[in-house]
């Protein structure tokens, strides 16, 4: 329907999405009544509209209170003569809490605002809309939660947003055709929704400060409200029921890049898209080829491009976004990039670019060697499985090599599902040929003729990049019946995972590639002896395989010379969580956690002290400050009961509740358990129950005892690492932060 000339009533219009919708509707020529609990905010938005020459009215409203709503709505109706658009946007976000720990008060509060508040406005406006007979529109703000995207800890919010979708769906069928209904289902949006607890009524629990961590995340990762509002306006104009703005996050990021690229192209520049250097806070990072090297600017928006060019792009220090020569950036300069040496430099889709940067030198060497020599080189390099288990890669290869079987396979585990990890993704999207080369070397070395990359479905860009690169490698003769004319065949395909964490466990992965239920197989037999389709199979992580080309190129000794103790070479550390500078750090083993957190990560993003760090994914132990000087080394970490794992590092500041995080470990395990072995299948859920009972003060001593026994059962009884390692975060949290496990009153 047409918006121009109509009037709109927008609840929650003072902030965030509501404000953006109010502004967007005004920009389309609608008069807008900005209704908000916060009168000052409403007034400010009304003033903004008026400032742009639009018509606006500010109203104070408490949607949960039908009287208040009627009063504001009547006022608006009278003021504009009629209303044709209702935007039911007011909503609150309760604190994250497992469903079983949510209070009745919170339920009343959330449903009063998010659902009944909506109903109050509909009761007022819908009959008038029907009566008028003119085309009218109602927009209800739901969420991606309405669509069943599961968010642990957001059960209450999810329930309310499901209610919004249900209510809207019925409403649009019950109302005559002249009154349209849309449901807005956004994902995370940059807004102040996280502060809604500050306005919780006294009777329902009173005011509480919002969670700043959530706020920071929303600010940093949320989509701009204006983008969402534009979709709502389109939704009204095009009369669509579901207005889904996410998962366009990827498209949104993509569009930002496109805009920057287009702006440069318009200025006559040749733009090449590379992978990520791993300096996330500087992205989009623009690097300009200069005679002295690549000169960087970041983060660059499309709007910055004109200024950069005007300032004489490439001239050092001439613009506030300039970071100097990228290679000299301290974050990069101090790193030891072996596996990631081409990342951010080469065009990931270009085989030529790969070759120009030393690609396939390792494979050429390998083809000149016997299989046994290649395997020996990998053994000598000291490379250990980077997926987390740290098993010597060369020994695994040797087992496969020694099997007198005609058909063998190489499989790459690219089901990167640990929270806070992204190294595999960076390789696959930034330098996919490195992985392809590594797998080809593995194949020709052990006599495998077919490789599979098992990539998680959540990485569509990785899958696309791999497929492009595989096609290019095949066309270039680097895959196929005769790799590089050697007469040795090797083929490679991508298999898309179906979203189960446990399929990152190697035997489950093999089951899944075979088309079976992703369920852990008992070992022995080892996959190296009876793996995919019962044949000898190399199963390696992306990072392990991507480290092979450099070993074959520069020699085992070169690689082995990095590192400490039995941890040789480099490790890709992925910095995430509450850190100022998230990104990728490739360093030789031996760097301490503290160096990583502070020298690279720059300390916490919130500015508060770092309380705990989880290394090695969701099943890694929580390390307290007293352990930050531990060097990153498999054995040193094992000695303190921690993991290096896949190198993911997630930091938490002192607002973190370690009991909730311990509970989350169980919850994660319960959600991802394949359901085969009893300790993991039932124990994970019972673990969460026990923590609930403990925090609720029900026989707390008994609960601690039970928790200890349960952890033992899971540790020693589980079939695979998922259940077997879940006790690590739990026990470390209890050990280092016992105060967080004291019984507390229910909230």
């Amino acid at each position, binding site marked *: 329907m047409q918006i121009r000339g109509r009037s709109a009533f927008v609840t929650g219009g003072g902030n965030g999405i509501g404000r953006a919708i109010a502004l967007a509707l005004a920009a389309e020529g609608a008069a807008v009544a900005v209704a908000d609990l916060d009168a000052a905010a409403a007034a400010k938005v009304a003033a903004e509209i008026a400032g742009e020459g639009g018509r606006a009215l500010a109203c104070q409203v408490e949607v949960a209170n039908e009287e208040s709503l009627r009063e504001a709505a009547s006022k608006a109706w009278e003021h504009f003569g009629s209303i044709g658009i209702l935007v039911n946007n007011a909503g609150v976000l309760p604190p994250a809490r497992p469903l079983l720990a949510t209070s009745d008060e919170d339920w009343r509060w959330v449903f009063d605002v998010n659902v009944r508040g909506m109903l109050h406005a509909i009761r007022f406006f819908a009959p008038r809309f029907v009566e008028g007979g003119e085309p009218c529109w109602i927009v209800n703000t739901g969420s991606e939660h309405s669509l069943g995207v599961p968010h642990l800890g957001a059960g209450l919010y999810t329930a309310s947003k499901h209610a919004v979708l249900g209510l809207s769906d019925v409403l649009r069928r019950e109302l005559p055709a002249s009154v349209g209904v849309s449901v807005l289902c956004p994902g995370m949006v940059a807004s102040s929704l996280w502060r809604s607890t500050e306005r919780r009524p006294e009777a329902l629990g009173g005011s509480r400060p919002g969670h700043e961590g959530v706020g920071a995340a929303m600010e940093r990762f949320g989509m701009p409200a204006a983008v969402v509002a534009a979709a709502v306006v389109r939704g009204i104009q095009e009369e669509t029921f579901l207005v889904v703005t996410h998962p366009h996050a990827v498209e949104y990021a993509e569009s930002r890049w496109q805009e920057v690229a287009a702006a440069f192209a318009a200025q006559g520049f040749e733009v090449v898209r590379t992978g990520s250097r791993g300096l996330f806070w500087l992205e989009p990072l623009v690097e300009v080829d200069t005679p002295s090297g690549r000169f960087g600017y970041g983060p660059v928006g499309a709007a910055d491009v004109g200024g950069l060019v005007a300032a004489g792009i490439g001239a050092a220090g001439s613009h506030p976004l300039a970071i100097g020569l990228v290679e000299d950036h301290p974050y990069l300069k101090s790193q030891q990039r072996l596996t990631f040496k081409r990342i951010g430099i080469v065009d990931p889709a270009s085989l030529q670019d790969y070759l120009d940067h030393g690609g396939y030198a390792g494979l050429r060497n390998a083809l000149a060697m016997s299989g046994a020599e290649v395997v020996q080189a990998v053994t000598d390099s000291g490379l250990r499985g980077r997926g987390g288990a740290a098993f010597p890669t060369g020994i695994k290869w040797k087992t496969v090599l020694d099997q007198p079987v005609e058909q063998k396979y190489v499989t790459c585990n690219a089901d990167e599902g640990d929270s806070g990890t992204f190294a595999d993704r960076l390789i696959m999207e930034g330098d996919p040929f490195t992985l392809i080369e590594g797998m080809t070397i593995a194949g020709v070395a052990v006599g495998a003729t077919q490789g599979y990359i098992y990539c998680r479905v959540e990485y569509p860009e990785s899958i696309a990049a791999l497929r492009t690169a595989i096609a290019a490698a095949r066309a270039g003769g680097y895959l196929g019946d005769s790799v590089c004319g050697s007469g040795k065949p090797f083929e490679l395909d991508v298999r898309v995972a179906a979203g189960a964490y446990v399929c990152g466990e190697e035997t489950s992965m093999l089951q899944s590639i075979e088309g079976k239920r992703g369920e852990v197989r008992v070992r*022995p037999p080892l996959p190296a002896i009876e793996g995919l389709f019962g044949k000898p199979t190399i199963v390696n992580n992306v990072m392990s395989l991507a480290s092979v080309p450099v070993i074959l190129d520069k020699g085992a000794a070169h690689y082995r010379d990095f590192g400490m103790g039995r941890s040789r070479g480099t490790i890709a550390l992925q910095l995430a969580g509450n850190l100022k500078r998230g990104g990728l750090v490739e360093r030789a083993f031996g760097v301490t956690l503290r160096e990583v957190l502070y020298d690279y990560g720059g300390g916490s993003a919130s500015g508060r002290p770092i309380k705990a760090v989880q290394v090695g994914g969701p099943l890694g132990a929580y390390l307290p400050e007293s352990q930050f000087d531990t060097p990153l080394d498999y054995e040193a970490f094992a000695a303190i009961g921690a993991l290096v794992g896949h190198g993911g590092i997630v930091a938490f500041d002192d607002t973190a509740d370690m009991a909730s995080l311990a509970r989350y470990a169980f919850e994660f395990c319960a959600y991802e358990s*394949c*359901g085969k072995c009893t300790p993991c*299948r039932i124990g*994970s859920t*019972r673990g969460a*129950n026990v923590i609930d009972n403990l925090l609720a003060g029900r026989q707390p001593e008994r609960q601690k005892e039970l928790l200890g026994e349960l952890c033992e059962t899971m540790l020693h*009884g589980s079939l695979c690492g998922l259940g077997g390692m879940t006790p690590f975060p739990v026990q470390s949290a209890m050990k280092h932060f016992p105060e967080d496990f004291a019984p507390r009153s229910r909230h």
Partner: protein
Amino acid sequence: MYAIDHIDCGTPASASEKLVTIEIDGHAIAVPEGTSVMRAAALAGTSIPKLCATDSLKAFGSCRLCLVEIEGRRGYPASCTTLVADGMKIRTDSDKLSQLRRGVMELYVSEHPLDCDGCPADGHCELQNMAKLHGVTDNVFSADGRCSERITHESKARVKALMTDDSNPYFSFDPSLCIACSRCVRACDETQGTLALTISGRGLASQVSASAGESFISSECVSCGACVEACPTAALSEKSIAALAKPAERSVTTTCAYCGVGCSLKAEVVDGKVSRMVPNRAGHANQGHACVKGRFAYGYATHPDRIRAPMIRAKITDPWREVSWDEAISHAASEFKRIQAKYGRGAVGGITSSRCTNEEVYLVQKLIRAAFGNNNVDTCARVCHSPTGFGLKQTLGESAGTQTFLSVMKSDVVIVMGANPTDGHPVFASHLKRALRAGTKLIIIDPREIQLTRTPHIEASYHLQLRPGTNVAVITALAHVVVTEGLVREDYVASRCEKDAFDKWRAWVSDPRHSPEATEAVTGVPAATLRGAARLYASAANGAIYYGLGVTEHSQGSTTVMGIANLAMATGNIGREGVGVNPLRGQNNVQGSCDMGSFPHEFPGYRHVSDDSVRHLFESAWGVELSDEPGLRIPNMFEAALDGSFKGMYIQGEDLAQSDPNTHHVVAALSALECLVVQDIFLCETAKFAHVLLPGSSFLEKDGTFTNAERRISPVRKVMEPLAGLADWEVTQKLANALGYPMNYAHPSEIMDEIARLTPTFHGVTYEKLDQLGSIQWPCNADAPEGTPTMHIGSFVRGKGKFFVTEYVATPERVNARFPLLLTTGRVLTQYNVGAQTRRTQNNVWHSEDTVEIHPHDAEVRGIGDGDWIGITSRAGETVLRAQVTDRVQPGVIYTTFHFPESGANVVTTDNSDWATNCPEYKVTAVQVVKVEKPLDWQVRFRQNRESRLPTRRDVTFETA
């Protein structure tokens, strides 16, 4: 829940012959390599706790109760998945192990509360036992009774009722009792090979699910019961035991009375009645498996339709009159004596039953030969596998299959010809499917697509979809390829077969007129496909042929059997494991009834009545003079009845009026008899023409033995008393005595002793040995005291194998403009033979009427849609059935089953028969079909009569059988 008397070793036995020595809790024991630690411990007498392991399934390692400590190894390996290694030192118990096991049990019990009262598995539940063993009684995770997942008792009952899947008539699935051990899923995969079950969901939401979240009845489940047997709790349990709510008193090991697989079953008994049937894991033929018929469809034995008292009448139009046993017997005897006095000694005869025991069959033929004084004895094998007996005797020297069923596990290539094992011989099909999943290649020769053609993880390499009636041409063409492409195993043939016959056959078969290219026009099998199949079979290290009634029930059935033997001999595929020529016998004791001298020309052990030494042996043992003239075959009896020279018949357990071809002709013959004595458990179709009706006893009501398709003699044991007071053998004995020929056996074992004494292939068989060994494959004598699993090792029974020229002579039954389609017939899984037993069970839920499969093209040109009534007319008669439009059949061919009397399949079939044995040609009838409005009047009457008593799929009332 496995049988109440089973001791479970946890994992299957290893086949290795190499022994390794290990130490379990300080005690040394030697076990075969490949044995699990769990099984080794069980063999040493130590039972390691377990829930997901059971010795019929591969180790799975999910319950984590069976953890042990092994010296020199880290952690606590699961004993089910850990294999023994020489010198391994294992501890099965320690404080730490107890603690871990208790931890696991606490988790189970938090999910599956111990509300055992009234549970069908109470007292025999593995979860209950394990909880008890580890001292777990309560949910420890329920703090102050406030476990966060606690639900009230009432709501639990509601949830349970909502979630329970009662759709299968025989068992129910209650997910609230499920412990997600996957035993059912694995049983469906490994034991049955249907792969109907899976686990859906993850974590605690992991749940057993049939097909894609369907109810059991709508899923691909074939109701074999393997899942029920494997379930450690009552999550999957028989409705029959839930209804009784009483533990079984005893368990009786006996043998299934359905198909020729001869599964060993354990009948559990409550209050003198069968409470359930459990497959016997020690059963040699079935290896702990069974099917929907044997495991569940035993309710007919106590069906109200059972005849419980003898009855007589003067004319078949008179009403029946219940009489005493003595009156019935003496009436029958006096009638037979009267007829013989009036029309001559040869005016009477009898039919033995392939459903009765060996001992009973033996007595009937003895009665006919000794008391009637003629050889007018025949058996229903006449109408199924008589060509097998003839063809294999001629070529190999013995009228029986050459292998054990399990031999198929060692086959590299299997030909299945004219058989549909998943429906007709389901338990053998499961063995076969296991071999196929492990890589054995399959060739199917069948006009119709059977399930094995393509089913999960199985696809036939070749399907030779021949025109019905062209078996001989196909078999000869296969042999032609073998001979002309140099695939003959010359050394084998030279050393083991008659040279002259082979040379003659080789020259004949090499003629280009037998080439696949030449026969293609007749058989419809593309030459390239046939050549591919021939090469695959001939080049296999072990090639085996399994065939069924699709081979024998033809005018050239015997020729095809000989052709099969030729092919197997030429390729060296007889005389060891993994090869052979294997008839899949239709009925439980069809092999035994043939063995026991049911044919008019043969004494027990296939010895001709004209052989003086044999006849003298029987004459001296039986104390009478015996005729050296072969008697009448069934078709001859009918002819003789119609021409007035044959007047009296004693038919034990055989429904000729329904099962024999050309019903009109059969009815006319039966109606012409002056005295027809029918001994049956039901008032069958044939009984409608009887003058004396003697109540039969089901297999549950007597002792004896059955012999299956692998020549395996298995014990049948009395589970309950005969409903009418007498077992069949006692009735025959009474009749013999009344006829003046004395028989005085006190127990069937005495009959077996006599059989063994008089039959060389049975010389070593005794009931004691059967009890000791479980079963025995004949020949069993001084040369093979424990029986003979594989025949013809080293040399053939007849000495040298003999090749026969198998000229293809097309059946006189031809299609023409009036009868343009060929009708062929077969079976479905859930019904058995003429349906007398299975129709009286809940199996009707799956198949409540016979339908006609017709190709979409043939249907379309006739305006026939799925479910339409269609009239089928042949040169012999007409019937009406519902159409099922499917491309399982090829154009020009229609297919039906004959499990319901109102289907009238045999009203349509002709009286063509095998040239050598008179086996009827059920498989080829030229017909025309047209769409009609309704069934014929007589069919409607049949249906109404039945539907008033039995459930159908559309009207299911799930009573317990």
